[in-house]
């Protein structure tokens, strides 16, 4: 017993020593992107911007699907709805952009709340397929003539963003940091523990007094909020909105692959996944313009078969990372 405590204290000291370097590098990594727009080319800044967008999407998807295990194939639903809300608020009602972005995130979470009450009664694969159906159904609804007075029909419309690229860049960066921070906060809280319990065994979680439905809905709402918030900035960056690009299933696939690659249900998994895939995609996109989406499918298959826990879990199992929830 005594040996064990000595061992433990040694280990603790070692980790403490190491953590200084971790803190320093974290500060460096967080500080570095702030100066990028001033020192690097527009191209690099826009790649980083896309990276932050992807981190935001991936963290949002992870909060629902990574923590509770309810795979959401309809994530771009929130992106599309928030995109439309933000654009319409600004163009038709003249709301200030940052407020419109925030309100669009809120509207996405309201939609998620209503949908969650209905859809979260479905289990596992039923939920996944149901969300996919909802995504495609609502996309069709936005192209129809019934919503045309608001959405201008299936052709969409261009708009001019009264916000500079730098503002979008810093907003995306802030949201990427915020989503990671919230993800960390959730996983270290009782709420996060409940979500993980739901993922492991929903019946058991319910039987020990966890309000399963309520917790799932809250996770869904938070997930949708980030999806919507990031989505509205992303669509502002595109300068154009139409149902097929706003509700594009591409932005459901990308976060899924990123989270699966990094590690579902972890804090840093989505960040690592986004980091790797954004740069891989940028490289592939410039060399094989068309083929890069094939890589996503391929990576997805390989991950499910060979590394089901993602990179983080793999490193934890090999002893390279401590087995704690906060990573």
């Amino acid at each position, binding site marked *: 017993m005594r040996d064990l405590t000595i061992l433990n204290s040694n280990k603790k000291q070692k980790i403490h020593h190491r953590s200084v370097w971790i803190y320093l590098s974290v500060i460096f990594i967080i500080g570095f992107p702030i100066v990028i727009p001033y020192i690097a080319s527009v191209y690099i800044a826009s790649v980083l911007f896309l990276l932050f967008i992807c981190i935001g999407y991936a963290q949002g998807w992870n909060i629902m699907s990574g923590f509770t*295990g309810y*795979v959401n*194939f309809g994530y771009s639903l929130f992106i599309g709805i928030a995109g439309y809300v933000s654009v319409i608020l600004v163009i038709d009602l003249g709301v200030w952009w940052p407020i419109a972005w925030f309100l669009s995130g809120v509207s996405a979470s309201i939609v998620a709340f209503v949908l969650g009450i*209905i*859809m979260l*009664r*479905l289990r*596992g*694969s*039923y939920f*996944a*397929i*149901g969300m*996919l*159906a*909802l995504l*495609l*159904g609502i996309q*069709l*609804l936005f*192209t*129809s*003539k*019934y919503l045309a007075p608001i959405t201008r029909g299936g052709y969409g419309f261009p708009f001019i963003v009264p916000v500079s690229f730098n503002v979008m860049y810093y907003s995306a960066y802030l949201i990427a940091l915020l989503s990671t921070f919230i993800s960390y906060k959730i996983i270290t809280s009782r709420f996060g523990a409940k979500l993980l319990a739901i993922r492991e065994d929903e019946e058991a979680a319910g039987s020990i007094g966890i309000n399963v439905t309520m917790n799932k809905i809250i996770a869904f709402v938070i997930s949708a909020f980030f999806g919507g918030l990031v989505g509205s900035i992303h669509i502002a960056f595109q300068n154009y909105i139409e149902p097929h690009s706003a509700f594009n*299933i591409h932005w459901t*696939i990308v976060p*899924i692959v990123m989270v*699966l690659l990094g590690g579902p249900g972890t804090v840093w998994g989505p960040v690592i996944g986004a980091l790797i895939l954004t740069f891989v995609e940028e490289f592939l996109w410039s060399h094989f313009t*068309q*083929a890069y*989406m*094939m890589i*996503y*499918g*391929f*990576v*997805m*298959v390989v991950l*499910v*078969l060979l590394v*089901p826990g993602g990179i983080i879990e793999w490193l934890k199992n090999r002893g390279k990372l401590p087995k704690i929830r906060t990573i």
Partner: protein
Amino acid sequence: MELISIIIGGLLLGSLYGLAACGLSFIFGVMTIINVAHAEFIMLSAYITFWLWFFLKINPILAIIPSMFIIFIFCILIYRTVINRIVGEMQLTSLILTFGISIFMWNFAQVFFTSTFRSIAYSTGSISFLGSFFPMNKIISLIIVSIIIGLLQAFLKWTKIGKAIRAVSQNPGVASISGIDVYKIRMYGFGIGGGLAAVAGSLIAIQWSIFPLMGADLILKCFAIVAIGGLGSIPGALLGGIILGLAENIGTMYWDATMANVIAPLLLILTFLLRPQGLFGYEERVD
């Protein structure tokens, strides 16, 4: 008169939907895997039929046989390399895995077949019946669907492999104790499911225009049909297909064509919420 022509049109469309969903339901029945890539098999087969017709001038109806064979082999390859590792695991795993296969396939198609819309001009005439006209190719499609479903039922009922497939779908454990090679039977099952998709693909190629992204719409319709008919049930899939075909035709006629496409997701979600076992299914399996 108009109503009758709508109903017959719905039946013609529904039979094709039924066949398209049949393979999905069949694969679920045999190994409880939800194959999201099913519609991509259909798309691939449609392209095979198209290329055979385009380059070799093979009659699209005859092209069903080679495209069925190619998809069958392709499915067996996929089963042996990928699917076989996740049989018996959580359904969500299979869902994500086959979603990955599906993404790979439609992007593959987009790169190598380009996203041009293509169609086969085959038997474009029409026949008149009860005072309204029906396109010839849809009638041919209905006949072929009936033949294929008849063959499938006969195969499942009377052949040794068919009986083994039924046994595995009812209880893999007992089937394996009785000396059935479950691994092999599931492989055949996956191949046959792909083969059914291939027939549907060839029939779609002579009626609609084909393009790499056609799977997205189709898979949703297949899911809706399978949800209505009950997962794993072939008669259920056919009935579900006919219900969806009728609903869409009536919707197109009295409502509008875009909104008719909303019917499939709507039906899907409503059945999931109100009657998850399907309208007709109650622990029904391939039989």
